[in-house]
């Protein structure tokens, strides 16, 4: 038996030595773990963030916002606005080609804007002002408006879902309600469809014929110079495993490392943690206006006094390094971020909340609060809300479910005892909630509004005014009025902001401060 034991031990040692991991692949292949796997490939058909990120890899945009949020030309060489503000003329840059080698034309862009305008909420609003989009020659097209609006530039530079990505005319003419199958773009990377394995990896290679702008990259604007020959997005669903793989050098980047694992990564000298302000997110509470008691504005208003942001942020993110208490509806430190009207609210003034409930005649109807249990960033929100609401005098029926069940249930307008709901909480990335037109939960067009279906004529009037107003200073004043109206009517309640850091190996540099993670400008040494 001793002989057998020795043989087994020797075999194990030999196996261990010979299986030593091979060194990481050299060259310019960057392996990243994104927040989700790529399953759908049409960034106009869905608003999922991973598909938006996919879009930024292979498509380009006419305009783009730089690091400060200023709108800059991207595929466009120059644009002019007529004196009456009703005609925009865009001229494309020279040398832009599709991945199949054909030149990018004004007809392609006109068709792409129309398809985006049919699907995107902001695009639809913009298109309601548009009389015609007309190609003038191969490189020039005009957008003629029925009346002036500030939405043309804001819309065409929209940084988040749905982004107005440019596609070849033959692709852009696909029914907006059907997914495209031809994934020819003109962006700095080409999608390698043959290597795409959903649930495993998504592969891109550098587009050699891409012609970057001459300006340095800034945000989503400037020169999109691809330094990487190949980018692989790997689907590692287990966060701990992603961290292990990053520490070992098997991958180069984690787009959204879990906050509780950041301390482990911080201690590793080979890892860089980046806090990108543009990747900030905002927690929100969404009441359902259709159902009693939240059909009563005064009862909804009691929530502003029941809640405080610190409790939510500490329960979910847990570190002061990554949170910011901010009562602004349109995100602090962004062009329309304002603290107007926020004094005294979100301070857990229980007495005031109780008074409001009493004045409103709250009869103790239990509030069905949907609790998402499987997404770490959201799991602890509902228990905190329940506790704070109960202190204020609400009766709360917190119902736990996975996020996808919540997504299905929130679309139901039925009463809560028949499968409907009263409230849920979620988070939005900065880029989606920076103004009254793009912020979906501010939309108060009753049946046409997002889940929760707020119905508020005055709010819709303000949003229309914002859309019509081309002057940014006046837009800011309207955005403030929207914020005040939201505090009065409670379309949503902002519950604080948090940073979502990016983790990179030290040898990866050039990550851009932008509202979406992009891979141009990134270098791997």
């Amino acid at each position, binding site marked *: 038996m001793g002989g057998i034991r020795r043989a087994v031990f020797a075999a194990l040692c030999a196996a261990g030595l010979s299986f030593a991991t091979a060194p990481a692949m050299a060259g310019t292949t960057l392996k990243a773990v994104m927040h989700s796997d790529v399953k759908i490939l049409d960034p106009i058909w869905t608003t999922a963030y991973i598909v938006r990120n996919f879009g930024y890899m292979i498509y380009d945009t006419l305009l783009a916002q730089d690091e400060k949020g200023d709108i800059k030309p991207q595929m466009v060489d120059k644009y002019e606005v007529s004196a009456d503000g009703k005609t925009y003329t865009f001229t494309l840059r020279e040398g832009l080609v599709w991945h199949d080698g054909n030149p990018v034309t004004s007809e392609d862009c006109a068709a792409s804007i129309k398809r985006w305008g049919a699907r995107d909420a902001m695009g639809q609003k913009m298109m309601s002002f548009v009389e015609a989009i007309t190609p003038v020659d191969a490189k020039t097209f005009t957008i003629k408006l029925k009346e002036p609006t500030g939405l043309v530039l804001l819309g065409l530079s929209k940084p988040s879902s749905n982004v107005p990505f440019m596609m070849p005319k033959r692709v852009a003419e696909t029914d907006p309600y059907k997914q495209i199958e031809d994934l020819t773009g003109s962006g700095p990377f080409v999608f390698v469809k043959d290597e795409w394995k959903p649930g495993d990896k998504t592969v891109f290679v550098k587009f050699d014929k891409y012609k970057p702008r001459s300006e340095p990259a800034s945000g989503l604007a400037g020169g999109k110079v691809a330094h990487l020959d190949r980018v692989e997005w*790997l689907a590692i669903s287990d966060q701990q495993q992603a961290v292990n793989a990053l520490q070992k050098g098997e991958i180069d980047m984690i787009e959204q490392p879990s906050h509780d694992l950041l301390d482990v990564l911080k201690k590793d000298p080979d890892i860089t943690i980046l806090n990108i302000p543009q990747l900030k997110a905002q927690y929100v509470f969404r009441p359902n206006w259709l159902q009693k008691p939240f059909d009563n504005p005064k009862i909804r208003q009691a929530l502003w006094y029941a809640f405080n942001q610190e409790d939510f942020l500490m329960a979910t993110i847990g570190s002061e390094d990554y949170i910011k208490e901010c009562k602004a509806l349109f995100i602090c430190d962004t062009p329309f971020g304002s603290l107007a009207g926020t004094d005294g609210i979100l301070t857990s003034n229980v007495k005031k909340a109780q008074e409001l409930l009493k004045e409103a005649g709250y009869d103790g109807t239990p509030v069905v609060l949907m609790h998402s249990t499987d997404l770490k960033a959201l799991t602890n929100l509902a228990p905190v809300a329940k506790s704070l609401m109960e202190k204020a005098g609400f009766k709360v029926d917190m119902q736990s479910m996975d996020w996808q069940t919540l997504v*299905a249930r929130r679309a139901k307008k039925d009463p809560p005892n028949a499968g409907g709901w009263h409230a849920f909480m979620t988070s939005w990335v900065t880029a989606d909630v920076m103004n009254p037109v793009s912020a979906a939960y501010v939309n108060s067009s009753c049946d046409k509004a997002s889940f929760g279906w707020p119905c508020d004529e005055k709010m819709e009037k303000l949003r229309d005014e914002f859309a019509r107003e081309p002057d940014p200073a006046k837009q800011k004043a309207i955005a403030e009025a929207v914020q005040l109206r939201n505090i009065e009517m409670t379309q949503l309640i902002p519950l604080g902001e948090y940073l979502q850091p990016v983790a990179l190996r030290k040898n990866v540099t050039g990550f851009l401060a932008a509202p979406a993670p992009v891979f141009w400008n990134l270098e791997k040494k």
Partner: protein
Amino acid sequence: MNMLAYIFRRLLQTIPVMLVVAVFIFLMLRLTPSDPAAIIAGDNATAEQVAQIRSQLGLDQPMLQQFVIWIGKVLHGDFGESFFFKKTVAELIGERIEPTLSLAFFTIVIAVLVAVPLGVLAAHRQGSWVDRLVMGFSVLGFSVPTFVVGYLLIYVFAVWLNWLPVQGYQHISDGIWGWAQRLILPALTLSVIYIALIARMTRASVLEVLSEDYIRTARAKGQIERRVLFRHALRNAAVPIVTVIGLGIALLIGGVVVTESLYTIPGLGRLTVDAVLARDYPTIQAVILLFSFTYVMINLAVDLTYTLLDPRIRY
């Protein structure tokens, strides 16, 4: 001829089993409060957009009509197209079968090679420290969840000793060494529970056989102990052991779900998890049908193996 008739009869019996599974999984998915259209549409989608997608997917049709369409296609070998991946379900399963088969093969080989000798050894040294050690390991193997074993092995062999990769899979066509290297930790993780199960059963069966007269006769004839154990005892104890191994292979179907997710192996287990999370009905239905069919076939194979191991068994 009897045997062929038996196999034919058993194959016929799979038809109602598969039909029940099909009805059950179809109803379970439709009655669960979920909506693939809402998931596909994304957070910014309006109710109209969600409704439009629901209509495109045919989910606005009456449930019976949806079932008839689906089962009709399945009977023609068409499992439909994934809601999400724009690929046929058959194509998706085809891509994922190699990693799962590889993992299952590695696991069962490790489990049998380790567990059977351990079980025989424990029976041979009944009551000794070796027996207690094997049985102690067996209890531990049953008790510790797969993901805990997985994290432990990853920490020791991948992070600390740096001998093996943390995660991932390499197709066999890209090199047998890389393929094997990436399967060692997942297979070890998954095999722990089967080693425990098979070792216990082997020990119990061998112990029972060791008290038989013919073992005493073999020893009296002066045969060496190894021959007595492996030729006489193990062979006659094989029927229950093969049953457990067969069950183990069938149970692997469940085990690969956790292990593949942990080690990022793009197999059928991960496909199942992804499909369930995304409520990808066509994929879930096809994978569950495939798993059920595999389960039935393994049971048939185990039953047939009995006749090879014990000539007294006839069907």
